[in-house]
């Protein structure tokens, strides 16, 4: 694996978000890149969310947005390139080789290292998915540069034009802003659903640059023997649900979680939960919302019997509307929910279910 350092030792390294001057060599790094994750022709939506974010950063810097698509040559590559442009890319780099058909660390990090060293982007963004985190950790090491993981906010620092990447730390108790000053590219991973999905604009145009790495398969040690798709796609549904009804420890026992399922069914919603509920086995762990679970941003998030601990909050606070039901008027969830009901969730959930059901009947009759 090529270990060629992209970065000579920094001439002068300033601390903090202060003014500082990049070396001439590092000034050559231009543009904001997103590595578009596609697996078997399917693009992870976090990549489009990141293109929206990259667009904002690039506009502040006055540079281009680049999208990098890696994979085996195939008809869907053109389609994905078009989508990347529609979501904000100015230039798409397609890196195509049979060895890139399935994600593997070794070939992916080899070609990404070379492509970054050739085209020199100043910022490289990846989703904090299993692919993105695996690849980012590897190429930040081959490129010997800074990587900030799991960011929730990205900005350009006006003092030094560097990426200011903000992420939760200490289990979400605190936020910290991290910068990579005297090294390029600046790298960050961002969790799915943290950033807003940008508007798709089919009229946008952009260039496509084809890169053919000519990889020799026999130099790669790890082989993919098989891929077993998940039989239930529940995970994806929670992350992209428009409406989520979540239950917490306040529901007191496993049987009461049925009240959450009932309301979700009437609303066509997905069911979420706080960590104690998944740990107690009341619901499966893929339904956990929060720092160690899923980040969600539905149009409506109903939280019943959830205290609103910071680790839960970070997973749901970007929802358009949060309605909290809690018997304790001082529960922290009321600090960030938009609307609150102080009361017993065991009574309010069935009342909501019943009344939504009636409204739906009325609606059906009316239409």
């Amino acid at each position, binding site marked *: 694996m090529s270990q060629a350092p992209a*970065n000579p030792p920094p001439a002068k390294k300033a601390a*903090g978000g202060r003014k500082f001057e990049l070396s001439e060599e590092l000034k050559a790094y231009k543009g904001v890149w997103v590595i578009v994750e596609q697996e078997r022709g*399917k693009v992870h939506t976090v990549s489009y969310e990141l293109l929206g974010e990259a667009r904002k950063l690039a506009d502040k810097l006055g540079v281009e947005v680049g999208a990098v698509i890696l994979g085996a040559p195939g008809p869907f590559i053109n389609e994905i390139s078009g989508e990347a442009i529609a979501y904000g890319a100015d230039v798409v780099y397609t890196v195509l080789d049979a060895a890139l058909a399935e*994600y593997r*660390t070794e070939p992916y990090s080899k070609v990404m290292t070379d492509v970054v060293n050739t085209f020199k982007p100043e910022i490289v963004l990846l989703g904090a998915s*299993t692919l993105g*985190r695996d690849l980012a*950790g*590897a190429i*930040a*090491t081959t490129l*010997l540069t*800074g*990587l900030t*993981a*799991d960011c929730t906010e990205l900005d350009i*620092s006006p003092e030094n034009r560097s990426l*200011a990447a903000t992420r*939760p*730390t*200490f*289990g979400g*108790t*605190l*936020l910290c*802003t*991290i910068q990579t*000053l005297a090294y390029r590219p600046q790298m960050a991973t961002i969790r799915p659903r943290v950033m807003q999905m940008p508007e798709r604009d089919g009229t946008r145009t952009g260039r496509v640059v084809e890169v053919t790495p000519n990889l020799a398969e026999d130099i790669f*040690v*790890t*082989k*993919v*023997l098989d*891929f*077993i*798709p*998940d039989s239930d796609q529940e995970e994806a549904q929670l992350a992209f649900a*428009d409406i989520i009804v979540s239950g917490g420890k306040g529901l007191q026992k496993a049987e009461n979680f049925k009240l959450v399922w009932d309301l979700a069914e009437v609303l066509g919603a997905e069911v979420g939960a706080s960590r104690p509920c998944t740990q107690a086995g009341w619901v499966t762990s893929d339904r956990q919302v929060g720092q*160690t679970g899923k980040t969600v941003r539905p149009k*409506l998030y109903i939280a019943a019997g959830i205290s609103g601990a*910071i680790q839960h909050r970070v997973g749901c*606070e970007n929802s358009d*509307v*949060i*309605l909290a039901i809690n018997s304790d008027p001082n529960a922290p*969830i009321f*600090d*960030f929910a*938009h*609307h*609150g*009901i102080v009361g017993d969730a065991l009574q*309010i959930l069935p*009342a*909501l279910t*019943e*009344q*939504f059901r009636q*409204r739906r009947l009325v*609606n059906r009759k009316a239409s």
Partner: protein
Amino acid sequence: MHIVVCIKQVPDSAQIRIHPVTNTIMRQGVPAIINPYDLFSLEEALRLKDRFGGRVTVLTMGPPMAEASLRKAMSFGATDAVLLTDRKFAGSDTLATSYALTSAIRKLHEEEPVDLVFCGKQTIDGDTAQVGPGIATRMNMQQLTYVAKIEDVNLDSREITVQRRSEGGVQVLKSRLPAMITMLEGSNSMRFGTMDDMFRAARTPLKLWNKDTCVDDEAKVGLKGSPTVVSKVFVPKPRAEKAKMIEAEGGASAQAAAAIDMLFTTYPKLANDLVR
């Protein structure tokens, strides 16, 4: 078989409190634990040792008090432990940390060739998931992250087959030793240590290493060796407004009715989604 397991001592973050006046972390009295994600990797390493023999070395970089975590790991069954500690390491980010740990693993490798390195999938305090890949890249080892199951290890052909969690499914990967593995949470559960292991853990001297023991290039560790700088630490700002409370006389059903009315009038667009 020689397996190295990298662990980290972390504060039990559920108990971290922020000083209300100074906005700084109050560390006093916060118990320190082994990063919970590391335990899945440690257990998997111990299982391989049970099956194939050999030894498991636990390695941590941290302050002298991290000794407690190493002794805990030995009490579960790890053979020996290395504490990499030096003031010069303070302020290391993930790139500098992976450099320092790799230096120590290289030294262990000279003593007895290392077949596998295990790291935690991520930590609960830093949460970066980067140190494992950093070590794999530096050691030129095969990188196998998010492993749900080790299907097979063949010490003669030096092949290893694992199931790796990826988006939308599981990859079955055939790879070769030496490899760096991070285990998925829930892939196993930590054993109870035996009485013998507990006594051994209390008695066995740790290897205390510092930068002079194994680090070649001092400029690559600590603040100096870290490309990233923390420019600001702050408490999440509370939302400007607190929740608007929905009040109604007449118990749960009146409250539910008032809530639905509120949703429909305040968010007319949402109403369509709610009663499709």
